[in-house]
């Protein structure tokens, strides 16, 4: 391990409970290292691999793309992308996954990976929500000679009426994942899976309440805190992976709402962020606050799935529930449900403008932004600005020009609002 390169400024959480979540994430990574040291196989998997199955089988898992994200958050995306590109991976493929592959291949990882990196024994990928989430793991599996399982999740071409044959196929793919894990030493217990599904149902209920509180004007939660809170359930240490932290967050937000407390003193504008925020510069998410603008909603919330309708999760039919949730998710690549989600969010969060970000190396979002822009504008009249900004590869990042674009969009929105 080498010394850290220059670590960019990372905002501090505003809420105490979110700070605890952040600590819990760090502890969670250390726990995985301990389990590995004790001889338990470690699985690298994609971020939408059903956590209910992993948790119910006590699988220590590293979300490979989260490692890629860390490389970016700590200012080293250039280094890790370069490692992957030196191995032959094109610069045009997903930068989060390029970072992941770079972290996997690198023999000279930075010090901040000391507590985060664990050599994988198995890999699990999925084509949900995109090609990268299945193909990037081929490189990880090849580097560490790991057995690899891919979950094939159909795209939702059916809309709201998802047919039984699709749910059944998806559930059988998940059964395949269970058999794969069993083959490599993990034990499956249906009752525990039911408990995990019940937990997701309860968690999604609390997350749903948090989401409703975030609709309040003034906005009670900073955008960066939301990023931590919404991704925390994936990576928290096992002890912290309970409802308590999220219930406290909800209660704290409720208190703020009741007191009329907002994260900016004089809230003038509300924005929605569609697309990945730049992981290497999270300060950008709080940047609009200088104009009195807040971001009550971002795409991360639906990507990680914790704001899904809790009623989709039926503990008595665990695999079917998970399958149905994956098919119905707005992250499922057919655009209709994503666009519907954006339009509804624009209304619910009473946003004045939408910032759409096109990650240059993403195969999924380009194109979607145009569809989302028109749908949002047609349905709500809310203007949408599209910025060209890669989410993880900071080599072409020009903060001055991005901030100038944001400034002019916000100023235009303010002028519009002030009439």
């Amino acid at each position: 391990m080498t010394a850290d390169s220059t670590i960019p400024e990372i905002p501090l959480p505003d809420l105490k409970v979110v700070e605890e979540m952040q600590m819990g994430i760090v502890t969670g990574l250390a726990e995985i290292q301990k389990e590995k040291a004790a001889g338990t196989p470690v699985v690298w998997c994609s971020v939408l691999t059903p956590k209910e199955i992993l948790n119910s089988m006590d699988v220590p898992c590293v979300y490979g793309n989260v490692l890629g994200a860390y490389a970016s958050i700590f200012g080293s995306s250039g280094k890790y992308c370069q490692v992957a590109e030196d191995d032959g991976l094109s610069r045009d493929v997903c930068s989060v996954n390029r970072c992941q592959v770079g972290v996997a291949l690198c023999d000279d990882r930075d010090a901040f990976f000391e507590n985060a990196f664990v050599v994988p024994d198995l890999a699990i990928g999925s084509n949900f929500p995109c090609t990268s989430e299945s193909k990037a793991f081929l490189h990880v599996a090849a580097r560490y000679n790991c057995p690899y399982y891919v979950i094939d999740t159909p795209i939702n071409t059916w809309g709201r009426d998802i047919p039984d044959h699709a749910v059944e196929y998806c559930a059988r793919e998940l059964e395949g994942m269970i058999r794969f894990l069993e083959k490599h030493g993990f034990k499956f217990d249906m009752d525990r899976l039911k408990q995990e599904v019940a937990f997701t149902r309860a968690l999604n209920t609390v997350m749903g309440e948090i989401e409703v509180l975030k609709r309040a004007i003034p906005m009670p939660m900073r955008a960066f805190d939301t990023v931590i809170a919404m991704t925390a359930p994936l990576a928290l240490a096992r002890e912290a992976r309970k409802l308590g932290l999220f219930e406290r967050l909800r209660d704290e937000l409720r208190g703020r709402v009741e007191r009329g407390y907002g994260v900016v003193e004089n809230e003038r504008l509300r924005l929605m962020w569609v697309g990945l925020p730049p992981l290497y510069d999270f300060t950008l998410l709080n940047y609009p606050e200088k104009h009195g603008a807040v971001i009550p909603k971002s795409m991360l919330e639906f990507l990680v799935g914790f704001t899904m309708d809790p009623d989709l999760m039926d503990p008595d039919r665990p695999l079917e529930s998970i399958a149905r949730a994956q098919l119905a998710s707005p992250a499922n690549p057919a655009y209709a449900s994503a666009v519907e989600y954006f339009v509804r969010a624009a209304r619910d969060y009473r946003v004045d403008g939408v910032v759409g970000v096109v990650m240059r190396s993403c195969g999924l979002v380009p194109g979607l932004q145009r569809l989302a822009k028109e749908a949002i504008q047609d349905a709500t009249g809310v203007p949408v600005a599209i910025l060209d900004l890669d989410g993880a590869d900071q080599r072409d990042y020009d903060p001055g020009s991005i901030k100038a674009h944001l400034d002019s969009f916000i100023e235009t929105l303010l002028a519009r609002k002030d009439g």
Partner: protein
Amino acid sequence: MGSYEPLASMEPFREVLRDPDAIARQWKARGGKVVGCRCIFVPEEIIHAAGMLPYPLYGTAEPVRLADSYFQPCTCEFVRNLFDSAMGGRYSFLDGLVFANTCDAIRRLWDMWEAYVDGAPSYMINNPQKLRSEVNRDYCLEELRRFRTWVELISGSPITDEALGESIELFDRTRGLLGEVASLRKQDPPLITGAEALEAGMAVTLMPRDRAGELLARLLEEAGSRKVEEAYGPRILVTGSILDDPALVRMIEEEGGLVVADDLCTSAKAYRHLVGAEGDPMARLYEHLNRRPLCACMHPMEARFEYLDDLVREYDVEALIDYNLKYCHPFLYEAPLLRKHFEALDVPVNVLEIGHDMSGHGQLRTRVQAFLEMLET
């Protein structure tokens, strides 16, 4: 490469490629219906059995203009090219359009087509992406049935199993003939060039299959007795993204390579296996889909590499050229792994990443030249 006398029997295929829409337009003028298809995972036999002409969508060499207002430029260039043509009205003669579930870019193309292209209804066959599996059987069969129902709606008449069986037989006959054409490339020297095989393979997909059968039989006869005075150069296999223009293969051959085999969806991948004649026709179409050569959009990757291993052995291949379209993520992800796989077998691989419009043609030629020279030393 050596000297290959031109084949007169190639001319009808080239004629088709010079105006790829001509046959479809003529078909329409006679009152027939035309259904556009993108990807070899679309079972064209179902369209044919309904009395309609399946028409595969190929791109043009034109630069993209209109599509860039809809897709960001980091989207697959082939997809942007097709959408550009659609927005320009090129496909207004279609009665329907079918995509197969292959990659993110095609899925988004379907979304965009639905939203912005006026005209014929479109359909996405929601095929599994993980093949060589029994788990996908019921799901895939149901998706094929649903597609059949959609085709019946477009055509306005039911498809009988008998008609479907006949269409399968006809398409298999063409596949068999194309397979025989491909076998001419196994010889040393190969009796047909890679560019000729690609031209014939692409043209066949654009024409009614009974007509294609006659032309292929003529080509086989003429090429089978072709005298190749000299043929030299390394025996090359071309694999990679969709290649809908023979220019690249022609360039490799102009520079001295013998393109004896390919793993392209516009060529050999489309006719490697027959659907077969035994059993329920829908079940046969499913079996065919599940066992056909995989592209990088599908899983498992090992099956794609095993198939390439087979081609290397069968065609006595000395080196691979892995052609990747810009922003074609599935192939770009597999490219480094493919290179390592074959280099471990002492088969050199040249990975190319190029634009659909063959921009940077000069640089590309230099890279191909350098690779071929390296092979010869």
